[in-house]
């Protein structure tokens, strides 16, 4: 039954994919619309969601310690001493992920039907989207690291395909390539970590690993495995997470990944795929908890990424870029949680983030759709009246990400901040980093919200000229004049927005501090966090107050500042240097370009010209030339004259008969 969860999207992919590839790929052939292909894909992922729900209920009926379902499909590899089955395992952690992936996935599929209605090849799009869901579900259901890795690579491939979906634009195609190449760096670390696990523990199965380490609820090093080995394993696997979950230094691909269609950004680059790094760390929490060094690195990288990405998000002007950096920042939060040992809080934030970030991205998509592909927030404003549903739902997502109680983001973010402060791995420094990031998050999200929905429209002139509408070409381009066509999106798009808004509103209640259903539920996989004695319990309320006050401060500042665009402009000129650095994303892309891309490019050029062409090609070509030359030489005896051949034949016969008669004697 577990195998049905990834099977449905695979079937959807095969139907849509083969229909597109074999029937419709011919040029000039009419493509199926987004309605029918989208319906097939949605049915497929909806099937997964239904099965996930059923299995969730089944798990819930079991006693907590035996909440594991397994299914082995077939033996995959068998060597001497190594056996690997194609096996799926559903436990309390993976069931949460299957629910989120298939649930949010279903909503985004429905949304895509509306969003991709003007696209030329929706069949291809939905086939890729289903393939992604298949790979992602395999990732979270895999019973061992290699199965997880299969899914890991599968989602990477789909991410590449979907970022470069509009591949005729070279910029978008190269964004896809960038994502793929950067992820390859991370996968290298992942593979090495996997090999090291096998050398150290002799198994790659999660359950076997766990039983090798955890005895009676306590994680302990098995005989013959050094702490340094475990640290190396954890750090190498974390390199994989850096790539897939966009952490410093491998985060650069995610903002560029916004070149893909917006539903893809919502599903892959916000809600699901990028959280697979957190999933893996949470899955191997017993391993990470053995290595304080690795934990410290994870927490530090997460915290710094959260802060760093938030600083960039403040100055970006592209609505999707802001959300992309926000995603990087929130992912940093999740790793911060994992690094201080609060794996449950990390998973909690994955879930709430999936709700509100998917909502924000889809809302942004709705805005972009309504504004006819305009993505610059400086050219928006005042959309509240034009797009009431998008406005209302986006507002809920905005409050959730800012961490205003009782929205979902508040609970998960506060849990992370509290544990960053109070846990044995945590520190005031990490807490301060997180809290500062929370203020900045509130600030840049409010900026985005204000510039997009509030204030006066700033798009009439630019928009009217861009599209050559006859509107407003009189003497005055008065403010408040809407160009023709800024419209609310169809119900297939606003419907999912409303569902996600509801989830963003109530999603946090699964993890209310001190009576967290989530912590209880995850207890078989992630040991419940021990209450630590060195921090007074009252501190929790104080810190909660501080973070809410911080969020409120961020919101207040941004609303005051961006009510009138003159004020931010003055700030930008006053601190021009800082503004330029932030606007140019700390010049990290340029730094990588200088230090990595260009040297490698130069090296490749040199090898190509001085070794490949000069040495290898010459050797290979000389073989070709030798046979050409010998052919030219020998062909001269081939005159084409039959009678000449007959003469040669005669001579040959005479010689061989002569040999038979006289030579043998």
């Amino acid at each position: 039954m577990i195998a049905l969860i990834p099977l449905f999207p695979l079937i959807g992919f095969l139907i849509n994919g083969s229909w597109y590839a074999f029937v419709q790929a011919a040029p000039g052939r009419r493509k199926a619309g987004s309605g029918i292909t989208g319906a097939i894909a949605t049915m497929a992922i909806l099937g997964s969601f239904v099965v996930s729900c059923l299995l969730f209920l089944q798990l819930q009926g079991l006693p907590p310690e035996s909440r594991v379902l397994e299914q082995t499909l077939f033996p995959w590899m068998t060597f001497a001493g190594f056996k690997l089955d194609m096996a799926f395992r559903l436990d309390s952690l993976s069931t949460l992920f299957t629910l989120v992936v298939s649930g949010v996935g279903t909503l985004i599929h429905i949304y895509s039907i509306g969003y991709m209605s003007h696209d030329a090849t929706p069949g291809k799009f939905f086939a890729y989207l289903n393939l992604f869901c298949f790979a992602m579900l395999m990732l979270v259901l895999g019973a061992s690291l290699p199965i997880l890795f299969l899914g890991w690579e599968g989602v990477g491939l789909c991410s590449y395909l979907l970022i470069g979906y509009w591949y005729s634009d070279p910029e978008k195609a190269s964004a896809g390539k960038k994502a793929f190449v950067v992820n390859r760096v991370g996968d290298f670390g992942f593979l090495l970590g996997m090999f090291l696990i096998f050398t150290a523990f002799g198994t790659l199965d999660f359950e076997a690993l766990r039983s090798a380490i955890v005895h009676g609820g306590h994680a302990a090093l098995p005989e013959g495995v050094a702490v340094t080995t475990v640290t190396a394993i954890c750090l190498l696997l974390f390199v994989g997470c850096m790539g897939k979950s966009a952490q410093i230094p491998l985060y650069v691909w995610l903002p560029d990944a916004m070149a893909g269609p917006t539903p893809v950004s919502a599903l892959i680059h916000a809600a699901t795929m990028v959280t697979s790094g957190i999933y893996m760390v949470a899955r191997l929490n017993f391993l990470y908890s053995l290595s304080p060094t690795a934990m410290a690195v994870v927490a530090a990288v997460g915290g710094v990424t959260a802060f760093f990405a938030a600083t960039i998000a403040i100055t970006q002007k592209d609505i999707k870029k802001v959300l992309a950096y926000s995603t990087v920042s929130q992912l940093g939060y999740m790793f911060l949680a994992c690094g201080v040992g609060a794996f449950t809080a990390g998973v909690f934030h994955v879930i709430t983030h999936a709700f509100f970030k998917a909502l924000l991205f889809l809302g942004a998509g709705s805005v972009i759709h309504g504004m006819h592909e305009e993505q610059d927030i400086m050219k928006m404003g005042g959309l509240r009246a034009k797009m009431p549903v998008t406005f209302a739902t986006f507002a809920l997502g905005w409050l959730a990400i800012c961490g205003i109680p009782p929205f979902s983001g508040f609970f998960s973010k506060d849990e992370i901040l509290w544990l960053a402060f109070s846990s044995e791995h945590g520190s005031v420094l990490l807490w301060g980093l997180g809290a500062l990031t929370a203020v900045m998050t509130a600030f840049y999200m409010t900026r985005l919200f204000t510039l997009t929905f509030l204030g006066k429209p700033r798009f009439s002139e630019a928009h009217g000229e861009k599209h050559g509408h006859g509107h407003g070409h009189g003497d005055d381009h008065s403010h408040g004049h809407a160009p023709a066509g800024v419209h609310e999106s169809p119900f297939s798009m606003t419907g999912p927005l409303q569902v996600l808004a509801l989830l963003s509103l109530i999603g946090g209640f699964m993890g209310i501090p001190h009576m967290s259903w989530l912590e209880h539920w995850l207890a078989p996989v992630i040991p419940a966090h021990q209450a630590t004695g060195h921090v007074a319990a009252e501190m929790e309320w104080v810190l909660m107050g501080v973070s809410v006050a911080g969020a409120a401060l961020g919101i207040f500042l941004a609303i005051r500042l961006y009510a009138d665009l003159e004020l931010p402009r003055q700030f930008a000129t006053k601190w021009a240097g800082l503004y330029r650095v932030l606007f140019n994303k700390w010049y990290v892309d340029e730094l990588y370009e200088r230090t990595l891309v260009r040297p490698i490019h130069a090296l490749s050029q040199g090898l190509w010209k001085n070794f490949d062409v000069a040495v290898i090609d010459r050797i290979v070509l000389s073989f070709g030339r030798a046979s050409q030359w010998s052919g030219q030489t020998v062909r001269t005896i081939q005159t084409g004259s039959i009678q000449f051949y007959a003469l040669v034949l005669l001579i040959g016969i005479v010689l061989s008969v002569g040999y038979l008669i006289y030579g043998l004697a």
Partner: protein
Amino acid sequence: MIQQVEPWVVLSFCAAIFFIGFAGVLIRRNILVVLMCIELMLNAVNLTFVTFSKELQHLGGQMSVLFIITVAAAESAVGLALVIAMFRTLRGVDTDQIRLLRE
């Protein structure tokens, strides 16, 4: 009493005819003549078979002759058809013209 012809006389005669035919194949450029020369060679071989058949008191030689005559008839038919086809395409029956495989 009828004077028996010595076998070496017949065989020499056959060899002479065979090589006359072969020389014709090698030298002549007219394909019809070449075909006739091939017939000459075949019949020289036939005569040899018959000679040995008589000398060795074995009917296999005569059997072969019958086969060769049959196959030669078919071969001439095919050969003449080819000559006609060649004449239609090349407007000539000169063997020097059929060197298309050279390049």
